[in-house]
């Protein structure tokens, strides 16, 4: 179920600023487990699961992904492009793409062959401006199909690797949208009193913009921010968080210390594995916007370990998604049965 959801949403595109296009895919999965649905004005999707008291808990995971945008149409049917969100140009070389013009146009991002590439060039990483999309059309033909400003998404079929590992584009941060789905499902089984808002935020990759507007709209009592973190690969220190060992709980100034500790306790009580990470200041997540929304929102931040961030082969362990979703449901249940004011009081 979670895998089906992830493969489905990751086969679709939600480029920052254009999240509205594929909304149906998302609504289809969330509607059975939630009571109402609305959007903020930037295009964040807000699914509400109603409770019986007036407390509001906001879960935030961003639905948007990084993408490309056409800047120029060149002779020979090539396109120049800019990025929407941060890309490593190195990961775009040899990448297949879809241009969302008047109709969908296929393209590839090629590389100059060695005989016209100097030794000097070969040692360097590409810059975005050195890369072109080859559409195979003549310029005249192409101009009928696409315009400047059209968005471009990467092509990559989701892959099942060994065990419960899966790989696709945009697991940053749809892995966490799947966490919310799991929490919503789980809350059908265990009771909750608070109103829970599952928010698939827009435009995180271009500056946590959707989290800013959606949290203003919801005005929650607490925020649970979900994003991806760096899972251990051979080029990282040996004590880095690993895939398959549970969510990474963050500690630092952006997060509410007592709420964070409470989450750790709940996980211990119910035997959910978690990993830990210090984030002294900036987190690079929706927490940046949530924490300072209106009068302020106490937040916790959970990250799903992920390898190869911002490439078309982001890799996660489904197991992490599942236990994080379940742990959050338990956490909400425990919060409902404790004195929230007491917890939030400094």
């Amino acid at each position, binding site marked *: 179920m979670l895998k089906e959801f992830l493969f489905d949403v990751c086969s679709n595109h939600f480029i920052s600023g254009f999240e509205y296009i594929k909304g149906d895919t998302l609504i289809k999965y969330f509607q059975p487990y939630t009571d109402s649905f609305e959007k903020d004005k930037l295009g964040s999707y807000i699914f509400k699961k109603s409770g019986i008291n007036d407390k509001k808990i906001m879960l935030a995971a961003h639905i948007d992904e990084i993408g490309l945008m056409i800047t120029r149409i*060149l002779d*020979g*049917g*090539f396109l*120049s492009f800019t990025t929407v969100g*941060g890309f*490593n140009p*190195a*990961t775009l*070389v*040899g990448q*297949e793409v879809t241009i969302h013009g008047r109709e969908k*146009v*296929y*393209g*590839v991002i*090629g*590389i*100059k*062959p*060695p*005989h*016209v*590439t100097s030794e000097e060039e*070969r*040692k*360097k*990483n*590409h810059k975005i401006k050195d890369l*072109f999309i*080859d*559409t*195979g*059309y*003549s310029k005249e033909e192409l101009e009928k199909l696409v315009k400047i400003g059209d968005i471009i998404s990467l092509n*990559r079929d989701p*892959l*099942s*690797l*060994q*065990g419960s*590992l*899966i*790989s696709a584009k945009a697991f940053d941060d749809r892995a966490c949208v799947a966490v919310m789905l799991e929490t919503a499902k789980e809350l059908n089984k265990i009771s909750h009193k608070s109103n829970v808002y599952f928010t698939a935020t827009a435009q995180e990759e271009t500056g946590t913009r959707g989290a800013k507007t959606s949290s203003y709209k919801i005005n929650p009592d607490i925020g649970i921010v979900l994003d991806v973190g*760096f899972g251990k*690969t*051979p*080029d990282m220190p040996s004590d880095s968080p*690993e*895939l*398959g060992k549970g969510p990474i709980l963050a500690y630092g100034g952006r997060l509410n210390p007592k709420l964070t500790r409470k989450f750790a306790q709940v996980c211990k009580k119910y035997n959910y594995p978690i990993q830990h990470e210090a984030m002294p200041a900036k987190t*690079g997540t929706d927490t940046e916007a949530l924490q300072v929304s209106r009068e302020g929102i106490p937040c916790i931040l959970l990250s799903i370990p992920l*390898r*190869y*961030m*911002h*490439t*078309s*082969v982001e*890799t996660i362990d489904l197991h992490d998604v599942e236990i994080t979703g379940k742990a959050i449901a338990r956490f909400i249940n425990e919060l409902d049965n404790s004195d929230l004011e007491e917890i939030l009081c400094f």
Partner: protein
Amino acid sequence: MFLKELTELAGVSGCEYEVRNYIKDILTRMGCDYYVDKLGNIIAHNKGRKQKTIMVAAHMDEVGLIVSGIDSDGFIKFEAVGGIDPRVLNSKAVFVGEKKIPGIIGSKAIHLMTSDEKGKALPLGKMYIDIGTSSKAETEKLVSIGDYVSFNSKYVEFGDNLIKAKALDDRIGCSIILDLLSMKLDADFYGVFTVMEEVGLRGAETAAYRLEPDLGLVLEGTVCADMPEVDEEDKSTLIGKGAALSLMDNTTVYDIDLVRSIAKIAEDNNINYQYRRSSAGGNDAGAIHKTKSGAKTAAISVPCRYIHSPVCVASKKDIHSVLELTKSVIIENQKGEDHV
């Protein structure tokens, strides 16, 4: 056209069996005589009117990777097989070994790089294949050192008569030879599917030794750099402008009379052709023309953008031009009384 099937098979140099089995199967169904030599080349014979021995060659192998090690966490280290710019490998999907275990090529996330690292091309040693295992033992159950790795890239048709696939160099040539054999021309030639071109023209050498051709025709996918911001003189070939005739490369100075005669045949038959305006690279002609007492050899190629990457691009028009031109050259050379 056998190109879709051919390009989606794995056949990294030294491990061409999938391609070989496929081609053998097609040849059997065609009722074409063939045998496989000691290195694994397939030599097929189209019997017909004969003035001379003609060898039409294309290589079955493709560039790829080979497993060189497995680290303690189960990540796979690799080396390149054939000439690959390491910059095309970042974040690509691959198949590992005979069981075709799906994997992806990983590297350090850009967020974790220093600004110095960001500016530099990532060398092979800083990339690894991730198949989703979490320990050395787990990986070793599925993968061994020496396993070949091929790109996971589907055949796609797009734009104006273009195709994208991996291994267009040189499944294009293989596909054209199969097309030629299926025509049952009344003109004698050997269709040779060679192995290990990408690692030193190994197969062509032994095949030519056996056949002793009078005329060698090498069908290739060749470099094409007709991209924005490349100077006109550096483009080498232009996509869609016809069969590319080689004049000189790193392995061969082509017999100019032969090349001009092929150009004339193209003109007489209204087939689009162009000269390959680069002397870089090399192909099986380098081995064939020097075998025994030597053989006049020409290379007729399909321009191929982004060659040696998972996303090679070629034009169906050019493939057609190469097919038509090769056919005409064979027929022209076997005209007259049958000597055999």
